[in-house]
C-alpha cells in the first residue's frame, strides 16, 4: 500500500524584545546563570505579572506577516504543570483566545500551509545536569515566545523545510525574532502521521519535540514516516506518544505515551486583564511592517530584471535586501548592484550567519558610487570589481582607489593607436589568429587592456583588433 505523510508544525519563536514578557529583566541570550532574574520572573510569592506591550506588538506583526486575522480581544491563560524550571508551576500562555488566527504561508509550489493560530507565552528556565546534582538557570524564564501552529497541511519533509525557512525569513523581516535555531530562539515540534494514499481520515499521530535544526527536522520526519509505515505494514498500530529525535542514532525514541499526557488545567490568568485592541492599533502596526520577502522577490524579478535565482539570494536575508535597495536607489540597472552583491561581496563572506547579519565594511552609498562609474562608462567592469575588492578590505570609498585620470575614460584615437601597435608587435599571435586559433586574439586583447590601465572597454577593443587584422 502507498502511504501519505501528514505533518503539522508547532514552532516556538523567542521574540526580539529588550525585556522579558512580564517583568523588566533583560531578554538576553548567554548571560551567566540566574543573573537576569527578579522576584517576578522567578515567581516569588505575591509578585504579579505585567504584560510587556512590545510582546503584543511583535505577536501582531508575526500575525500580519503570515496573513493571520488579529483577535481584537484576547486573554492570557495559565497552563499548569509542575517542573523545576517552571518557577510558578504554571506557564502563562494563551488557550482559547489567542492573539492571531487563520493565517497561511505560501510555498514556492503555490501550496498554502494554513496557520491555525499564533499565541503568546513565556519561556521556562533551563536545567543543567551535573553528576548527582541538578542546577536551575532561570534566565530564560519569562522570555517572550510566540507559538505558531499550522494545520496538518504539510505532506513531505521538503515542504516542512521550506515552510520553516520561509517562516524564519518572514519573522526576521518583520523584526519579530532572529529565529536562530542553533541558539534555541526558534524550535519546532513536529506532529506526524501517515494514512493510506487518498484516504480522508487521519492516522494516529506522534509528536517529535524540540527540533533545533532544519536538517535534523527533515531527517526526523523521514525516519518517523518510514517507522510508522513499517508498524502498519507489520499489522501493528501507531501508538500516540511524544518522541524525541536522537541525533547520534538518527532515530526517534519515546519520551512519554498518551496515558502520561498532562492535563494542563488551563484557566484564564486572574492576574492579567484581557488584551483589547482597536483597529487603529493593528493598522499602526501594519504600517510599521517592512515589505515582506515574497513581495520583494516579485518586484525584483518582474520589474528590476533580476533572475529568480539571484532574487532568491537577495531576499533570503532582510539585511541583504535592504542593502541592495539602498545601493540601487539611483541606479538605472540594479542588476549590476545585484551582481556585485551576489558575486564580489558574498565571496568575501564565509558563513550563512555572517550573510544574515551582512555587517560588511562598506556602505550602500559607497557601492552606489562605484556602480554609477560603471554605468557612465567611466570605468570598466574589471576595474570596478578589483576596486570593490579593495573597498571591502579597507572600508574606503571609490575615490581612494581610482584617480580622476582613471575616470576620464580613453579616447577613440588612443584605442586605435594602442591596437595598431599591438597588431604590429604581436605578429606571431596575429598569424595564429588568422590561421584559426581564436584564443590568440585574447592574448593581444590582454596586452592592450593592460596598457589602458583598465579604462578601455574590452568589447570595443576586441572589435577594433578584429577589424585591424582583417584589413591587413
Amino acid at each position, binding site marked *: 500500500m502507498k502511504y501519505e505523510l501528514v505533518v503539522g508544525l508547532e514552532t516556538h519563536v523567542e521574540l526580539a524584545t529588550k525585556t522579558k514578557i512580564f517583568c523588566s529583566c533583560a531578554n538576553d541570550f548567554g548571560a551567566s546563570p540566574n543573573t537576569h532574574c527578579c522576584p517576578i520572573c522567578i515567581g*516569588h*510569592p*505575591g*509578585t504579579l505579572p505585567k504584560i510587556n506591550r512590545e510582546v503584543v506588538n511583535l505577536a501582531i506583526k508575526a500575525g500580519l506577516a503570515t496573513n493571520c486575522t488579529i483577535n481584537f480581544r484576547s486573554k492570557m491563560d495559565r497552563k499548569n504543570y*509542575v517542573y523545576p524550571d517552571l518557577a*510558578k508551576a504554571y506557564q502563562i500562555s494563551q488557550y482559547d483566545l489567542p492573539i492571531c488566527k487563520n493565517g497561511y504561508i505560501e510555498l514556492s509550489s503555490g501550496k498554502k500551509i494554513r496557520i491555525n493560530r499564533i499565541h503568546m507565552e513565556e519561556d521556562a528556565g533551563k536545567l543543567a545536569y551535573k553528576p548527582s546534582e541538578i542546577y536551575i538557570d532561570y534566565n530564560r524564564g519569562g522570555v517572550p515566545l510566540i507559538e505558531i501552529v499550522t494545520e496538518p497541511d504539510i505532506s513531505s519533509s521538503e515542504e516542512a523545510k521550506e515552510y520553516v525557512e520561509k517562516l524564519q525569513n518572514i519573522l526576521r523581516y518583520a523584526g519579530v525574532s532572529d529565529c536562530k535555531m542553533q541558539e534555541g530562539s526558534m524550535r519546532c515540534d513536529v506532529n506526524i502521521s501517515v494514512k493510506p494514499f487518498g484516504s480522508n481520515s487521519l492516522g494516529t499521530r506522534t509528536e517529535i519535540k524540540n527540533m533545533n535544526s532544519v536538517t535534523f527536522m527533515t531527517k526526523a520526519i523521514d525516519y518517523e514516516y518510514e517507522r510508522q509505515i513499517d508498524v502498519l505494514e507489520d499489522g501493528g498500530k501507531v501508538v500516540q506518544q511524544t518522541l524525541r529525535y536522537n541525533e547520534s542514532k538518527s532515530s526517534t525514541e519515546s519520551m512519554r505515551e498518551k496515558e502520561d499526557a498532562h492535563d494542563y*488545567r488551563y*484557566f484564564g490568568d486572574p*492576574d492579567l486583564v484581557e488584551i483589547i485592541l482597536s483597529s487603529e492599533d493593528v493598522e499602526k502596526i501594519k504600517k510599521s511592517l517592512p515589505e515582506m520577502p515574497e513581495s520583494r522577490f516579485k518586484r525584483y524579478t518582474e520589474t528590476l530584471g533580476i533572475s529568480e535565482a539571484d532574487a532568491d539570494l537577495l531576499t533570503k536575508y532582510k539585511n541583504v535586501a535592504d542593502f541592495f535597495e539602498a545601493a540601487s536607489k539611483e541606479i538605472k540597472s540594479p542588476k549590476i548592484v545585484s551582481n556585485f552583491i551576489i558575486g564580489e561581496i558574498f565571496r568575501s563572506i564565509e558563513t550563512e550567519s555572517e550573510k544574515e547579519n551582512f555587517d560588511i565594511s562598506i556602505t550602500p552609498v559607497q557601492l552606489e558610487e562605484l556602480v554609477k562609474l560603471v554605468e557612465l562608462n567611466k570605468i570598466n567592469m574589471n576595474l570596478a570589481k578589483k576596486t570593490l575588492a579593495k573597498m571591502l578590505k579597507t572600508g574606503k570609498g571609490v575615490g581612494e582607489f581610482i584617480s580622476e585620470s582613471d575616470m576620464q575614460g580613453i579616447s577613440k584615437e588612443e584605442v586605435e593607436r594602442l591596437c595598431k601597435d599591438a597588431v604590429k608587435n604581436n605578429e606571431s599571435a596575429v598569424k595564429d589568429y588568422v590561421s584559426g586559433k581564436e584564443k590568440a586574439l585574447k592574448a593581444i586583447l590582454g596586452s592592450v587592456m593592460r596598457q589602458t590601465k583598465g579604462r578601455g572597454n574590452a568589447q570595443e577593443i576586441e572589435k577594433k583588433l578584429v577589424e585591424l587584422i582583417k584589413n591587413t
Partner: protein
Amino acid sequence: MCSRSVIKKINKLLLSKELSCKELTENYLNQISSSSLNAYITVCKDKALKSAEKVDEKIRSGEKLELLEGIPMTLKDNISTKAIETTCGSRILKGYKPIYNATVWNTLKSKNSVLLGKTNMDEFAMGSSCETSFIGGAKNPHNLNYVSGGSSGGVASAVAGNIAAYGLGSDTGGSVRQPSSFCGLVGLKPTYGSVSRYGLVAYASSFDQIGPIAKTVEDAAIVFDEIAKYDPLDSTSNPKANSLKTYESLTKSVKGLKIGIPKEYYDGIDEEVRKSLEKALEHYKSLGCEIKEFSIPEVKAALPVYYILACAEASSNLSRFDGIRYGYKTSHYTDVNEMISKTRSEGFGAEVKRRILLGNYVLSSGYYDAYYKKAQNLRGLISRAFDKAFNTFDILLTPTSPVTAFPANKKYSSPDEAYLCDICTVPVNIAGLPGVSIPCGFDSNDLPIGMQLIGKKFSEAKILNAAHQFELVTNFNYIKTPSMGVKI
C-alpha cells in the same frame, strides 16, 4: 464630640510630646510579649524601635507629622515585607523572608509607620477561625475561649486586644470583615482593584483584596485613603483608586440614603444577630434613611461559586511552593519529584490540601465545564444582580456573619458546614464590591455582633459615611472593649 479614632489620639499624644514614639512602641512591644492572644507570628522589635526613633527625631525637629506617622500597626502575615519573615500561617513558608516589599507596605513605610510585627492567620487565608494556622489560632480578646475569626484573625485579635493600633488584613471571601465582626471592629473590604495586590501572597487572585481592620470607621478611612492607589505593578489595579477620598465625606448627613435589605442574607441567621440588625435599622431610620427589603435570589449560588473558583485559583497559585527556591524543604528525598511531593505533603495543612485538591478537580478536563465554567457564568449573573440592586439602592445592609464568634477548637461534621460561615461575606468578593463590617451589638455571651454595609464599586466613601454616622449614634465599638494591651 471628641473623636474616638485611635490614630488621631496617638497622633495628638505624639505631638504633645507627653510620650515619645519610642516609648509608645516599647509599650506595645511589652504588651505583645506578655500577651496570650497568639496574635503575632513574628514580632519586629528592632525594626519597630528604629522606625519609632526616626519619628521622634522628626517630632523633635518640629516637622509636621502626618496622621499615620509613628502609629504602631501590624500586617497580616501574607503581605510581603522585605527581610521580615512572611509565612502565610504555613509551615511551608517557615523561614521565608521576601526580597521585596508589597506595594501597601512600601506606601505605609514611606509614611513612617511603625510595624510591630506580622499577625497570625488561617493557613494561606483558608479558614474562618484562624485555627488552620501552623501556630494555632489567635484568640478573641472578648473571650479567650472563643476564636478571633478568620482568616485575618491575628490582625483582629491584635487590634481588639490593643496590641496594634490598626492592621491590614486581606479579604478573599470575608477574611477582613468576619474577624472584625467577631472582635467588635471595623473591617473594610475595598472594591477589587482599589488597593494593590502586589506583594499579597495570592490565595484566589480574582477575589483577594487588602483592607484595613481598625477600632473606628475614622481609622479605617484614614488608612484606606492612604493605601487606595493605582499601582502599575498590578494589572488588575484601577486608576479610579486614586480619586477615592473617604475620610472627608464621613461627616456628611445620610438623610435620604436608600438602604436595601436583601432578604436572602437573613435566612437562617442567629436570632440574636437578627435582633441587633433590626435595631440598627431603627437607628438608620431615625437618621432619615429610606429602608426597603428586596430579593436577590442569585446570592444563593454564591457559596458554591466562591468555593469552586477560589479553590481553582488557589490550586494554581499554591503550586509554586515546591521547596526549591524558598521556604520549607523536606529533609529526605531521592529525586526531585519526591522532594516536591514530600515538601508539599509535610508543608501544607489539611484545609489547604483539601482546597488544592478541590481546585485541581474542578479544572480537570472533563469537569471544567460542569464546575469551573458554570461557576464563572454564575459569577457574572451574581455581579449583574448587584448592579441591578444598586439602580434602586445606595447601599445594602446585611449581617457580616450568620453567627457570632464560636468556641475555639469547634468540630464540624463536614468541611462545608464550616464553609457556611462565609455565606454573608462571599457575594461581595464574587462581585468585586466594597463591603465594610461594623459593630452593631453584643450577644448574650457579650460577644460582638457585626453588620455589613455593601456599596457599588468604588463607593467606599458612601459606605464608610453611613458606617461612621451609625457609629456616632451608637457606642458598640467602645463599650465592653477588652481591658488588655496598651491604653491610649
